[in-house]
């Protein structure tokens, strides 16, 4: 019943393709990629659209809100229990993430969430989600 504590999060692997995503995260903004050839959003961000292979992909500001598609709370073998989840953003893409700053026993599929940014061990912050 304890609210989740912050755990040590490893630094993400930043590369030229996702650099703008993590630069934005450092400023507290969530970006997603949109393909201007086929119109689809995708995540994680790629240079080539995973729907049509076009290289005409652009960064867009995400609203930062969504709902929990599915989740699992890890308690065994980890120093601090945490909740891994897929969140479906309002833009329609699924994001593999953690649900944080809440009672992990109360996390439910379909719950509305909003993005928060959590510091990492020596890298840029990563987007995670908390119930609204």
């Amino acid at each position: 019943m304890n609210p989740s504590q912050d755990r040590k999060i490893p630094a993400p692997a930043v590369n030229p393709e996702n650099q703008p995503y993590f630069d934005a995260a450092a400023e507290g903004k969530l970006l997603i990629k949109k393909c201007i050839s086929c119109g689809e959003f995708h995540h994680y961000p790629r240079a080539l659209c995973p729907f049509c292979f076009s290289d005409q992909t652009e960064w867009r500001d995400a609203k930062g809100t969504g709902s929990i598609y599915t989740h699992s709370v890890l308690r065994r073998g980890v120093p601090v229990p945490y909740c891994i989840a897929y969140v479906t953003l309002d833009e329609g893409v699924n994001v593999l993430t953690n649900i944080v700053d809440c009672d992990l026993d109360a996390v439910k599929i379909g719950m509305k969430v909003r993005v928060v940014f959590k510091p990492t061990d020596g890298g840029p912050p990563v987007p995670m989600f908390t119930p609204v």
Partner: protein
Amino acid sequence: MSIKGKACIVGAYEHPTRKAGDKSVAQLHAEVAKGALEDAGLAKQDVDGYFCAGDAPGLGPLSMAHYLGLSLRHMASTDTGGSSYLIHVAHAAQAIAAGKCNVAQENDFCEFSQE
């Protein structure tokens, strides 16, 4: 039993980039995959087999299929250094002959040491 004549190479692509400081490894794999498909006159929806070695990021063919948005029936990731890719061609031909897949994509990527 011979698999001679059961499979053929229908497309190829060599990435023009030599020093790719502005691209991720997955992106290079993807751009090569796209180029080979265009050379073959095929779409990515046609690809149902994928082969790559240890130079591919993450979990190899699993991660690359996710990156590329491929829907696969067969994948393999034999890693024998620089000879991986010749073995992939043989394995792809065998997989096609055995009916495991129809269109196999093989990504050969040599990463030279960075300065």
